[in-house]
């Protein structure tokens, strides 16, 4: 007997429909899976058999062949388990009278017959061309996004068979009791002082500029970075769908029955593997942290501690907003358009450029700063040197402006930028600078002086104009005034940290 059941697999973050064809025929008992299954897919044989038996169903003592079609598409993961089990049962005539054409199946099977969540359910359900989809109860809220699809979430294979045969009603989809991503309350109002760094954060949110925070430990670098997502606008429909899919594929919690609208915040540790950071991995190709930060903020604390190869791999996504992960079975593209916030100490002791004296030798400072690659630094428009808040903050620390007020300015600045037809100012092409970033006479003079005194390079000048454009948008002015330009130069020109040769390290 032959049966055919619809399921799906994930490629990148996109779902791909897979038809599971099962043939149960005469011959020595055997169970083979063909059609480009990966390792965990092949293991389905053992899981499926155990699940069927422990559900009190009959495992046919026959020659079973499973074909995963289309055969040219690599299948990964365990999400085809359920479809294979149902296919075997149907081909063995245990599901006679059930209209399987109306159903899709996306779930992993436990040895006890329970249905388990698989990463990427969101994308898989979208790819299944069937009005009803059976998923694990834990994935029900992910599947429920898709309008017009009825989600069935039985707890076990046994329960599923009873429901299919009409012996009992489908269970109600489980209530999602907790919000999986707790919105941690962090407000900019908690950050007092740090006026330049706060302003830089606002500019980063408004213009999509990358930000480097330099300062000693305890200066509040990560505290500030954590508050960037709160300043950013909600994710657009398109980005929200991509981000939610990435999180689903990565197996991260996603909000119940809706897309992620809050920009994500990811802060991988510098010891994270290349695969965890960039994407890839042996077996199933997973999106990395940089893709999980899609649409939001990627915070790299202690930038100098990350491996040079990892920092090098950041260049492509910073340029293109996506990352290509090459594997033997082809290339997978993940979205990776994030705001980079990087933090580092200025020197091994941390106090270079602070009021407190630095205790490092010049050679040690050189070695330390050399870890920052020029090409990466080039893509960071905003560089702020923070110092530890000192006594005056404790004495008369006024509370900082709250996130809501700053966010309102960011949103109206984003609106102004959108009127120019570009997503963010950081992506304005050079050709339109004169059209969109015209300078007042005073602003132009400031820029000239900064160039003349070697505090800006030629490339730095272009980026500085873009930052100035964003500041002007925040101020609500059409032309770039002197104050916007001066601030942009201050935030772009690399602070001279060591200048034994009078050289500027722009």
């Amino acid at each position, binding site marked *: 007997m032959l049966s055919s059941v619809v399921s799906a697999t994930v490629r990148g973050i996109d779902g791909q429909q897979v038809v599971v064809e099962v043939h149960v025929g005469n011959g020595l008992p055997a169970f083979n899976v063909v059609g480009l299954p990966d390792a965990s897919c092949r293991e389905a044989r053992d899981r499926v058999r155990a699940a069927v038996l422990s559900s009190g169903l009959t495992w046919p003592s026959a020659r079973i062949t499973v074909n995963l079609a289309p055969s040219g598409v690599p299948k990964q993961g365990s999400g085809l388990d359920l479809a294979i089990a149902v296919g075997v049962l149907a081909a063995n005539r245990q599901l006679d009278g059930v209209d399987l054409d109306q159903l899709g199946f996306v779930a992993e099977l436990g040895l006890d017959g329970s249905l388990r969540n698989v990463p990427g359910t969101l994308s898989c359900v979208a790819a299944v061309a069937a009005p009803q989809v059976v998923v694990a109860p834990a994935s029900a809220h992910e599947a429920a996004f898709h309008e017009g699809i009825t989600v069935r979430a039985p707890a076990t294979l046994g329960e599923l068979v009873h429901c299919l045969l009409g012996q009992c009603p489908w269970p109600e989809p489980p209530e999602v009791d907790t919000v999986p991503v707790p919105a941690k309350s962090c407000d900019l109002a908690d950050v007092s002082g740090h*006026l330049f760094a706060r302003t830089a954060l606002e500019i980063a949110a408004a213009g999509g500029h990358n930000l480097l925070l330099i300062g000693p430990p305890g200066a509040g670098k990560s505290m500030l970075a954590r508050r960037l997502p709160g300043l950013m606008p909600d994710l657009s429909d398109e980005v929200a769908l991509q981000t939610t899919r990435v999180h689903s594929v990565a197996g991260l919690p996603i909000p119940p029955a809706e897309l992620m609208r809050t920009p994500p915040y990811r802060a991988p540790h510098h010891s994270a593997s290349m695969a965890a950071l960039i994407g890839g991995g042996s077996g199933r190709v997973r999106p990395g942290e940089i893709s999980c930060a899609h649409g939001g903020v990627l915070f790299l604390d202690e930038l100098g501690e990350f491996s040079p190869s990892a920092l090098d791999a950041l260049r492509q996504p910073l340029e293109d907003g996506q990352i290509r992960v090459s594997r033997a079975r082809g290339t997978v593209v993940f979205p990776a358009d994030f705001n980079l916030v990087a933090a580092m100490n200025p020197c091994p002791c941390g106090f270079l450029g602070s009021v407190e004296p630095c205790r490092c030798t010049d050679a040690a400072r050189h070695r330390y700063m050399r870890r920052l690659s020029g090409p990466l630094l080039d893509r960071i428009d905003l560089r702020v040197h923070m*110092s530890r808040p000192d006594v005056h903050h404790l004495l008369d620390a006024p509370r900082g402006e709250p996130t809501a007020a700053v966010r309102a300015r960011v949103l109206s600045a984003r609106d102004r930028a959108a009127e120019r037809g570009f997503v963010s100012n950081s992506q304005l092409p050079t050709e339109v600078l004169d059209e969109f970033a015209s300078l007042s006479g005073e602003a132009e003079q400031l820029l000239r002086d900064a160039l003349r005194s070697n505090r800006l390079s030629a490339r730095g000048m272009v980026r500085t104009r873009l930052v100035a454009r964003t500041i002007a948008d925040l101020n609500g002015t059409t032309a770039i005034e002197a104050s916007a330009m001066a601030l942009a130069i201050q935030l772009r020109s690399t602070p001279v940290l060591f200048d034994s040769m009078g050289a500027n390290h722009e």
Partner: protein
Amino acid sequence: MNELVCPVPIECDVSLASVVALSGLPNLTPRRFWQLLGLGDPIAAWNAIVSGTSPLAPGITDTGTRWQRWAQGIDPSSMLESQRHAGVTIHWHGSPSYPTRLIDDPEPPVLLYCLGTATLDPSRSVAIVGTRRCTAYGRNVARELAAALGSAGATIVSGLAHGIDATAHAAVLAVGGSATAVVAGGVDIVYPRSNRALYESVSRSGALVSEWPLRARALPWRFPARNRTIAGLSDAVVVVESAERGGSMYTVDEAANRNRRVFAVPGPITSTASSGTNRLIADGAEVALCADDLIETLGLKRSNRSSEVKGKSAAQAVDSWLLTEVDFTPTSIDLLVAQTGRSVGEFSIELERLLSVGAIRRIGATVERVR
């Protein structure tokens, strides 16, 4: 002073080549070099090393075998040729181009390798030396003094190390003055490597000087000798910052042995980098209070500085609400913004203005007044 020192008997390229070859011997201190030459003809001295029969270090001693092994890999004439090929000029004690200040030195270099265009006999020369671990204050002072003395016509002598040395050299070249850098390796060895750009500008418009041939590495035993050459080539030594046991203190000792004037720049008593200089002052060194004082005491002409003076007064004329708030020591920018109560935009304009005219300098999260 030193009974061994006498003009080096060099009559032809062969004897010069032998001296050049001898100068590369491992662990050859200046004193032993003179002893070797005291034995007579340099060619014979070299051959004795090669054959292991030198009475100073026969091939049966540690040094003797080391020297012999090293010497057997050397062809003196091609070694001399490679120095000349690289544009290195050689001044030996007794040659007409040998620096006058070193002729009567208690322990003069046997010979000097030199790369560059500047004369080794400037009318006035001042050494500016100090620690590699200098503070922003030390850099400021080194820069200021080197620029002022350089503009007044003095050649600035230093060791091209990190910190004070490199700052002084960069500053004097920036005002078009003359720099003599005495290094502890061959003149083609850039040490520390991050100073490459500075090495190149010194060899272009100043003079790079070494007692050792090309490719000789900057080994620790060469630094004391290098320091005594710095002292010997200078009329006065200014120590900007140094810890009490810093290498600059050797230069000071060598300067004192040669009756050179020693000036020390006072610093905060809490700063390790100034502990040595403050101690020198307590012990009777002259105090370097400002560039003008030095220029006057050393009998330099101030007229050449007119351009510099003009630049300065222009900066002093800057009328700024911000400048009055900035100290000569690093001041937190965040603190300044809070104190002045201006918006970051307004504040930035003023900051930019002062940075452009060079009235202040920004280092990380701080600014400091330059003048």
